[in-house]
């Protein structure tokens, strides 16, 4: 299985390449990609450096152009596709139908991957993208159980990539407007969820309050580990019960599923986290490289090493990991 790694900056990209990525995925410095965060992503000049660095080391570069283009400013998405094609990018990762149509028509030689934001959770939807735009690979939303992934892999008209590690979206990607409901930005409309501009931290006595656009997402006692106020991971009040009503701060870690995913014919595993630090990228890529190599050398005797999980826990949200939707009990 191909190890697809995040790079929010040139330094993260170099680290991912040096530590064993088979492919890196990047985005441009605008709202055409779903990690449109301040201080992140690539200018045209940096893209050239990124491609040179990766290609010299036989590592592929994918470009995420995976937000939904609006009528006004549609040219930005068009330009992102053109630039990627001209630089000889290995694949663009898209979600919007109009962007796919443009890429497929204008640059038929450019490989198209369907982004997780394209919300393809079944073979009919995969067929829609394969038949209409000759999509080569699709990234599956983090809502399918392992059994569903296996079934889908056996019927899919395109290669499949799944999320292996990183921050866990609890909702079907591309189908969540919670962020634009509380702020004015969502992953679909401008590539941001719970945007930093809307975050406020407030010390009240011994308690630390985290707010998003003024609304209380969580509060922490002294000494309690505080997390970024991603709106689905706060503690809320449902009929008087205060709890993580939607999801706890936790990260997806599927390292123990490597044999199952490989047997199912999954083509690539994806590490989430273009917004994370180079140290995160180094730690996660190195660990996953070791795990995938261990599986490749001796699939029958593959066993998860405690040191892998220890390393990954250190960079996990809330220092917890989960198998997420892959296990039915989580659902």
């Amino acid at each position, binding site marked *: 299985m191909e190890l697809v790694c995040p790079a929010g900056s040139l330094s993260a990209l170099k680290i991912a390449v040096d530590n064993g990525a088979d492919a890196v995925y990047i985005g441009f410095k605008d709202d055409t990609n779903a990690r449109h965060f301040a201080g992140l992503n690539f200018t045209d000049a940096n893209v050239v450096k990124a491609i040179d660095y990766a290609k010299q080391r036989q590592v592929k570069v994918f470009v995420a152009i995976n937000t939904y283009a609006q*009528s006004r400013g549609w040219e930005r998405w068009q330009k992102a596709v053109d630039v990627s094609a001209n630089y000889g990018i290995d694949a663009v990762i898209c979600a919007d139908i109009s962007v796919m149509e443009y890429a497929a028509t204008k640059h038929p030689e450019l490989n198209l991957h369907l982004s997780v934001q394209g919300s393809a959770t079944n073979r009919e939807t995969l067929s829609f993208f394969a038949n209409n735009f000759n999509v080569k690979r699709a990234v599956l939303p983090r809502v399918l159980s392992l059994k569903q992934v296996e079934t889908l892999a056996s019927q899919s008209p395109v290669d499949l990539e799944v999320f292996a590690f990183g921050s866990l979206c609890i909702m079907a990607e591309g189908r969540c407007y919670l962020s634009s409901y*509380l702020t004015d930005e969502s992953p679909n409309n401008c590539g941001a969820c719970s945007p930093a501009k809307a975050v406020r931290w407030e010390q009240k006595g011994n308690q630390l309050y985290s707010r998003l656009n003024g609304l209380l997402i969580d509060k922490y006692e002294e000494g309690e580990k505080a997390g970024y106020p991603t709106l689905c991971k706060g503690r809320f009040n449902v009929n008087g019960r205060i709890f993580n009503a939607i999801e706890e701060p936790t990260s997806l870690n599927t390292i123990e599923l490597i044999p199952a995913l490989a047997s199912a014919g999954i083509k690539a595993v994806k590490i989430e986290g273009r917004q994370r630090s180079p140290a995160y990228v180094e730690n996660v890529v190195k660990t996953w490289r070791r795990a995938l190599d261990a599986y490749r050398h001796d699939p029958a005797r593959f066993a998860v090493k405690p040191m892998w999980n220890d390393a990954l826990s250190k960079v996990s949200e809330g220092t917890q990991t989960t198998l997420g939707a892959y296990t039915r009990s989580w659902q």
Partner: protein
Amino acid sequence: MKLSLGPILYFWEKQRVLDFYQQAMASPVDVIYLGETVCSKRRELSLSDWVDIACQVKAYGKEAVLSTLTLLAAESEIKTLKKYCDNGEFSVEANDLAAVQLLSEKGIPFIAGPAINVYNFKTLQFLIKKGLQRWVMPVELSKGNLVDILGDAEEDKSRSSFEVEVFSFGKIPLAYSARCFTARYYDLPKDNCQLKCIHHEGGLEVLSQEDEDLFTLNGIQTMSGRLYNLESELAAMQDIGVDIIRISPEPTGIFEQISTFEQAMANGSKNISLSDADCNGYWFGKPGRNISREELS
């Protein structure tokens, strides 16, 4: 402009649903959407029950549409979807591209529901080629987005080839998950959810720890905490060229709301007062939860 009644997003007992549609048929709505769009485990009504209601709606002189499931992951869900698409009589609202794929393969025209991500005219144009005849705008889009898209359609001389419907009243469907949040509230796994959502006719309210309304949990769906209410924008929608105003079923007061909308459409939107339980932010390009009273004319 016509009025439509969207699919019931909550899980209600069969008799309640049947009674609801008797009232709906007698109400001023012109189009009625029927079917389960949220969770395939909700089986109070089968497809044939929905088709029976659709036949009654049609006999009553109104348009009936079958709405399909939004998040399709299991084989059984695709099988049911095929039956919806093959019903042979009623139009289908596609809420996932799987339905678009099945319908367009067979050359059957379709309605694109609000969960299909159409954010620009080029995407709409592509779906029109595939058989789209009516477009329900995604809920997070604004009046400005709509004006841009319809302007592009005018320029393309294709505005007359499709209808536009806007979700205009009710709790807003905001997100879909593999996880059932109602079951989670009861500490039950989804596989043994005991269909607890049937006890929450309007979902479960999620408040912040400072008691501010945030969301509504409805099984695997997360909805807005507030009621979207575009009653004050009916005249503006008429001007832009919106064809259909969608009212989404709520457990109480929905038929009064339909009458209010009908009167406002007939008399112009006057003396509209929005309550703190309402919101209209998305329409104005603001956070969806916002309420803009100053925008009212």
